[in-house]
């Protein structure tokens, strides 16, 4: 039993000294990320996170485990304060402290008894539960929608920033005309 507790404690430690980085370019490989963050301390491990349920083009994410929690905290505050770019610019990466849920190979929480039961259809809670199921599904759809909005905002911003070069050159169009438009000429039969 002791071993289980220890294992979980070690896992929690790991979480504390890990940083979750996202908005990473797909070009960034583990080695690149490691090199980039080596500036901050000793990087133990870098794992790229697979996205199964999200849209493509949202940027990759990675879990970086540092040697201790202090280094992790330094990274997060530094990245938050000044834009840091990995493998390309100018979109900076984002860093957050890692949480338990981000690790999919986590051990069980010790001394947790999971209970589950099937609801009987005549149970008054059945209806509530069905509603809950529906709401959960709705939430997922809402999240999807927000994700698309996010992505659109990203593309728009990219257009604006990528278009920076265009801004220095700029185009000419001649529209709308400076003077108010004259009324369309009406051709009369007899001039």
């Amino acid at each position, binding site marked *: 039993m002791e071993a289980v507790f220890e294992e979980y404690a070690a896992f929690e430690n790991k979480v504390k000294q890990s940083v979750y980085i*996202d908005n990473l*370019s797909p*070009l960034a490989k583990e080695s690149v990320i490691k090199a980039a963050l080596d500036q901050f301390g000793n990087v133990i491990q870098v794992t790229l*996170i*697979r996205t*199964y*349920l*999200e*849209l*493509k*083009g949202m940027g990759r994410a990675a879990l970086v485990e540092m040697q201790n929690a202090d280094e992790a905290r330094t990274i997060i505050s530094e990245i938050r304060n000044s*834009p*840091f*770019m990995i*493998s390309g*610019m*100018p979109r900076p990466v984002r860093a957050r402290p890692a949480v338990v*849920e981000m690790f*999919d*190979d*986590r*051990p*069980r*929480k010790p001394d947790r*008894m*999971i209970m*589950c*039961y*099937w*609801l009987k259809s005549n149970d008054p*809670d*059945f209806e*509530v*539960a069905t509603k*809950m*199921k529906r*709401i*959960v*599904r709705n*939430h997922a759809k809402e*999240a999807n929608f*927000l*994700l698309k909005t*996010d992505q659109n905002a*990203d593309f728009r*911003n990219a257009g604006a920033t*990528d*278009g920076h*070069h*265009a*801004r220095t*050159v*700029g*185009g*000419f*169009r*001649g529209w*709308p005309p400076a003077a108010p*438009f004259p009324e*369309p000429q009406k051709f009369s039969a007899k001039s």
Partner: protein
Amino acid sequence: MFPLQEAAEEDSPEFSWGAKKGKGAHNKDVQFYKSFTYAGVEFNLYDCVYMYRHGEEEPDIGKIVKVWETKTRKRIVKVVWFFRPTELTHWLGNIKVLGNELLLASGEGVGLSNCNPVEAITGKCNVVCISIDRRNPQPKDRDLETAEFLFYRTFDVGTQEISEKFPNSIAQIEVEHFFNKVTDLKQPIHYGGKGSLDMPHSFGGATIKTTLKDDQPGRNTQSTLPPVTLVKQTKSSTRTDQCTTISQCQVTELVEKELNKVPISLGRQGRQGNVSETDKTVARTEVKHSYCTPSTNALKKRKLQDLSDTTPFDQHKVMKSTSQVIEVTTRVKEGASTWFKELPWNDRLQDAQERGTLMLLENLDPSYASTEVEDIVKHALRQKVSAKMVQHNTFSNPLNGKAFLIFKSSEAAETAIFELKRRCLMLGDGRPVVARKGTIQDQVKSKDFPGHLSIGKLKFQKLGEEMRKAVSTSHYAQSNTIEHELAVEWRVLQEQSSLWWKALRQEQAAEIEQLNSKLKNPIKNSV
């Protein structure tokens, strides 16, 4: 601050010319081109592009109609503009416009077109023409879905009139170039004026091109009709002596037969409606042209052959692929017992999805371990499964845990989903488990990432050694660079985004709380 490491800076995006088109008639120093590559994107003549205008937030949209390089190595494009409805409010008045509609400029006058430097282009734009003009290849559903903008009307800058009619030419360019591009596999050969044509009216170019490219027949559930390029029996060049004319009605018949054949074999989305439409258009235009003397039987057969040849093999492809699909599923059912193989998780997921043994469980406690999930399923559904929790990322719901389950067989998965949907499996703290058929996104190796300019595969042919070794590296942005400004903009967007998500999750949590309180007998987990 950490020093700026080898910053990969480019003064201007890469540019290279494509195919040449010819020299200027008046000025021999001007070289026209058909295409060019700018900033890694290939632009062709008649592509639609975004152009940045000084002082405007929204870029303009125009169609490239001429591309050239001047004597002084200046690269110029001439674009014909599309108007946004907001630019024409004065003339639109109360007329309704579609959400992403544009209007094409026509006529003569200011605002029709301009010549601008290539550097003002900020990107390609996907504009689809939905006009029912005969000369316009009708877009397919797929095109409409990926289109950024649509247009079917013109705005004459001279007379300031909005109209659905398209003139024969705009800015001295034939109007056909403004319509959708033809994506035939074989070019429809127009009936030339040569040869013994006994017809009083000329055929002139009313080839109806209902085009279709069925590149992914297996997966494309929205498959539309196969291309029926009405090649007006042009092979008449060899057969002019024998058969000079075509019976349009016959052609129509044949076409109809072909068209009718296909939906049945596809049987996917009953696009019968569409079939009859195109039939009618075919018939209509056929009838318009003069009826010629009917040809011989031999010709009929040959035409049938021709048509089936020219309705490119796509038709055959389509039929083959549908039967292929069926095969796959039957095969799958046989091979379901091989799930014990310990492949890496990703491959197993892909595999499971194809076999139909993949399921997604939602609304689990997010701190569950994968093994715990497997246990739950073992007890509740009495099924042995392989489970793995989905890693949380920026967008995951913090209250909600998800897990992928791989069942032994698709039937087991089906029954499980059915059970979970019909009845309610409650977890300790009042959470009903939500089950769904699992689908995962393909892990496409996309190199582009919005907002990122990096040295990827740009060809440094003429530049020196140093430039060739240049690589995008990681660094901080120094505050006196443009890069910093842009980076800060991105940070702002990031913060904004995290605020949205926070707000959404808060709302959702509140909803769940509300419902939770209605539960009468929750069994709390002992934690």
